[in-house]
């Protein structure tokens, strides 16, 4: 295909008006409000339904809500979750739940923050909270285990405590 070059006028060939126009654009930004954020010192504001890294939560009584049903492991598209099922301690206050994860591993290298685990969880035990910059110095460090996930997740206030009066 043959492209016809447009015929430039005298002013256009001179180039100066365009240079001045660009310069004006630059100068006009100087007095305006600053756009750049000094991350990581300055954190961005997160809106209400923000989906960060998936974390495990406890109920108001401090009980681990997860019962190791492994549905999140099943639904996880990048296979980032691995649950090792185990038993609740005999005689403990939450012994009626019978089952809990003896370990719960999320590979944060793999996690795509899709939220399927939160959606599928029948116990409302895993939530995508507000941590968005998970980092570590090694791959091993990016495997978040049960204790770390529970610490990050904290306590979730909710009214329904299904296992309380079992």
């Amino acid at each position, binding site marked *: 295909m043959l492209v016809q070059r447009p015929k430039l006028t005298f002013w256009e060939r001179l180039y100066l008006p365009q240079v001045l126009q660009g310069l004006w654009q630059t100068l006009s930004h100087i007095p305006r409000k600053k756009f750049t954020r000094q991350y990581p010192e300055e954190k961005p504001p997160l809106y209400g339904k923000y989906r960060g890294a998936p974390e495990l939560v406890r109920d108001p009584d401090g009980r681990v809500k997860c019962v190791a*049903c492994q549905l999140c492991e*099943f639904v996880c598209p990048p296979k980032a979750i691995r649950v090792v099922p185990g038993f609740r301690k005999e005689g403990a206050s939450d012994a009626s739940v019978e089952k809990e994860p003896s370990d719960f591993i999320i590979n944060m290298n793999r996690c795509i923050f899709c939220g399927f685990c939160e959606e599928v969880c029948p116990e409302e035990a895993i939530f995508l909270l507000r941590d968005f910059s998970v980092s570590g110095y090694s791959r091993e460090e990016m495997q978040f285990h049960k204790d770390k996930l529970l610490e990050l997740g904290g306590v979730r206030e909710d009214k329904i405590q299904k296992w309380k009066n079992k």
Partner: protein
Amino acid sequence: MADNTVNLTIDDKAVVAPKGMNLIEAAKLVGIEIPHYCYHPKLCIAGNCRMCLVDVGMPKLGADRKPEIGSDGKMVVMFGPKLVIGCNTTVADGMVVLTKSPKVVKAREGVMEFLLINHPLDCPICDQAGECRLQEFSVDYGKAESRFVEEKVHKPKKTALNAKITLDDERCILCSRCIRFMRDVAGQDCLGFIQRGSHSTLTCYLGNEPKTNYDLNIVDICPVGALTSNDFRFQQRVWFLKQTKSICPNCATGCNTVIWSREDVVYRQTPRDNNDVNQCWMCDYGRINYKFINDPHRLTTPSVKSATLGQRVNLTWPEAIRQVVDKLRAAKRDSLAVIGSARATTEELYLLKKFSPSFAAYIPRVGTGDNFLLNTDRNPNAAGAMLTGFSSDYSVIADGIADGKIKTLIVLGEDAIVPELLAKLELLIVLDILPGKTTEAAHYILPGVTFAEKSGTFINAKNRIQRLNPAIPPLVGTKPEHLILSALLAELGGKRYATIQEVFADMTRDVPALAGLNLSKIGDSGVEVKS
């Protein structure tokens, strides 16, 4: 033959069923499922779950005793005023059965609602989830929402029925399959219901816990999660597990099984239907005895006992094969003996026999049996060992070693000859999976694999040849025995077999009883061998 069959119609499909068959089985013939809980093809009929309700009618007969034809040109069918249960209604000539009529759908919804009223919301912690009939039928035939607002009835949870089984009474739907199995099949009348109405509870009399060798079958037939196996409890969810058809290697009955595995771990074994062998049951002894597959002490590298270093030295596979072949070349053929395990596959034994024309024996293994599934012969493949030329009299080999007639011995997965005799040997090559006295004495150890990691065949006590399939890959560092043996044979100038099929093809040529067979002909359910 026509006298023994009846013609009927199920959901507009013509069915020819044998006389005396019930409607659930007749519907199965044409691929129609009538949902049911209490009915089990191998147990007597209880008819208490009411899930298999169907609409049954007969053609209306005119004064001439012939079916009346309606104005639309079709036969007029008179349906009963009430629905009947499919499990306890036998087929009859001309019968018309509807399994999806509005009346039936409504009835099933009702039954499902009743069953779910007191059922706890335990699915996330219930081992049955994923293979639960209540979950399945609730999706297929139930309602989405519960109208029940009252307090559910609470019953004992997490009780130990016996050492092997945990009973959760809240989950029980009172189908009584376990009661009937223990009474009629296992032969111990121990389970029963106490209380009435929605408080009915499955239990056993104190001191009369199930104590047969078949208890774990009630876990299989329990349609819900009321009975769960302690061995499998909270180990893994069933939807992650891969099912591989296999054979139980613990006695000569050769029960057909399914191995449930995930990645490299075997989690459980369950029986597989085969009416010619084990119906749909298996004994607990065989079911539980699979732990050695994932034993942390498994042998994982070929090794040589070094005379100069005075200790065991690990070898790579090519190096091990080369050294063993060199040693075997130097050994005299008539002073070489082989001991094959009758727990090994027929193919392995066939290859092993090729090393020694004169001395070949297997170790008999006898235990107490019952008259049901557990055989007194605890070797799964004694018939295969005999067919491939092994004798059960291994004292000949022990005597041969004592006399000094036998100087070289190849042992495949056995631990029977006393160490004092083994010490007399010039060369001892052992193929095994776990360390033992024989591997300790061995000059060369070649680590093999378990039954769950290999292909092959077993021939059971009734001369039925059945197939093993690999459920998990061989443990890192090990090799299937038939590949080890064929690698050795190839180096010694024999044929190199790349696949189990090639070994089997050669074996059918040399063993007349197996003539004309191949692995696909054996299939999943096995075939009888001419003996």
